[in-house]
């Protein structure tokens, strides 16, 4: 049974918008929301700057201090950092070996493919606890 992750339509639109605008570079950010009964709800996105100085078309890095501040801020609202999003310019929305090497279990990783500037449907992934592979999660739209 696939795990589910729910996002409001507005959040998905924003996600596609960021990804398309950032092309041909990778964009990245934080997924803010909460988990109830095994279902994750994304309330909003917290975009952050891609901290990489080089290879920005195929690599992203989130500043630790930025993440720390976001975590502190959303905790005050009773929300959590559920995961992260980034885009794959001219590449499918499938985690790469590099993604896998750097991923953490538990978090949802949402990837947006951007083919020649047009953002396509995002896909969500979670790293297995043994780090062996990613398992896909279904993204449903919250109306």
């Amino acid at each position, binding site marked *: 049974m696939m795990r589910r992750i729910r996002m409001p339509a507005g959040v998905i639109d924003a996600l596609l918008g960021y990804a398309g605008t950032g092309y041909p570079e*990778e964009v*990245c950010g934080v997924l803010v929301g909460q988990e109830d009964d095994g279902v994750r709800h994304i309330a909003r996105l917290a975009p952050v700057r891609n901290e990489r100085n080089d290879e920005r078309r*195929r690599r*992203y890095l989130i500043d*630790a201090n930025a993440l*720390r501040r976001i975590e502190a801020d959303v*905790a005050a609202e009773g929300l959590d950092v559920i995961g992260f999003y980034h885009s794959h310019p001219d590449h499918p929305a499938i985690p790469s070996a*590099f993604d896998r090497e*750097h991923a953490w279990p*538990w978090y949802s990783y949402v990837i947006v493919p951007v083919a020649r500037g047009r953002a396509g449907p995002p896909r969500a992934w979670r790293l297995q606890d043994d780090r062996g592979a990613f398992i896909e999660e279904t993204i449903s739209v919250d109306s």
Partner: protein
Amino acid sequence: MTISIRIPAALRSYANGDGEVQVAAATVSDALRQLVDRYPSLLPHLFDASGELRNFVNAFVNEDDVRTLDGPATRVSAGDTITIVPSIAGGAGALSAEEVRRYSRHLIMPEVGMEGQRKLKEAKILLIGAGGLGSPLGLYLAAAGIGTIGIVDFDVVDETNLQRQVMHGTRDVGRRKIDSARDRLLDINPHIDIVGYETALTSANALDILAPWDVVIDGTDNFPTRYLVNDACVLLGKPNVYGSIFRFEGQLSVFWAEQGPCYRCLFREPPPPGLVPSCAEGGVLGVLPGIIGTLQALEGIKLVLGAGDAMIGRLLLFDALMMRFRELKLRKDPDCVICGANPTIRGLIDYDEFCGVPAFAAAGAADGDAVPAITVMELKQRLDRGDPLTLIDVREPHEWDIANLEEYGARLIPLGSLPARMNEIGSAEEVVLFCRTGGRSARALRQLRDAGFRRLWNLEGGLHAWSDAIDPSMPRY
């Protein structure tokens, strides 16, 4: 002091679901120790095998990353908050969609696949020379997707190169070889980088030039450079893919001192100068460097992929006329002066001196050992005047067939047979020595001078100069 530790959502399941934990500690390291004592399953996620905070884990004291403070020894005060923050990074695969299409014939092979193609893209291979061997090397390494190809060559494309140096074309004659190579290779594959070094490789620059590269492929045609490249690779610990050609024979091996023999283990000393003619002097069947250079590219690719058996400790011998490949086993020489158990060479030496090559450039003598020279104009004047000069041509018989000065009484004594045939020259005669461009005849002059001859002249520029200035109907070759 009592301080708080905030645990990220990803690790809370290892901390009984707690997002924030109170401990009493004086330093960050102290506090984290207590945390993992309380929740032992957190240990592998926070610390590596040597007890250091894992690379992918950041710790903040309030708003400061502990790495900007005193690291784990950072002191904490009552009311401080330590926040554990995961490092978040990632990115697309190494290959773009276009590259995936381009390399599809590689990707569908299990021996290569995405993983292998990524290795090719991340590899950095340096080619010494963009000529006969360098051409197929560059072409096939670029096509295969080697991400960064370096080329060391200070030469300019000449028409006589085009018989074999297929990386260059007629329109490139007169251009620098690295420019011609860069254009050609980027046309084959725009997804790679080409780094050109327009310089001769010398003992002064070789270690610096070779240092950043993963694999060095020697495409040179002279012994001093072969020994220089070998020694530099041994000193830097780099694999050296060796290839050489001579008329109809080729050789191939991989010298990697950490795993097998080096060039000196096989060829302890260079041959005496003048014994082994270069391509210019001895000639070469154009397709032969194409074969050996392509095999060198193959070995380079195998080294990068870690596939198959590289030619380490093996020497491939190819006889193009008999169409036979043979293989010899090579052993590391335990007494090798550079890669053996007790090396005596620990730095680069003077390779021209080592190979006995007189220190003069192809353009002419530049040192104190200059040879007396006569220009083609002067020679023609003296011959027209009827001066009794002895003209000795030191080229090879087949060169004599192309063009010669027989009408002026010239005689052929090839350089290699000069020592045995010196007695054919009277010691009282005034002798003008010449060859195609003046290099070999300068060597011949020195040999005769050492043997006691006194009235010697080297024809400056050789028959090329004669063809340019005196007799344009004489073919230049």
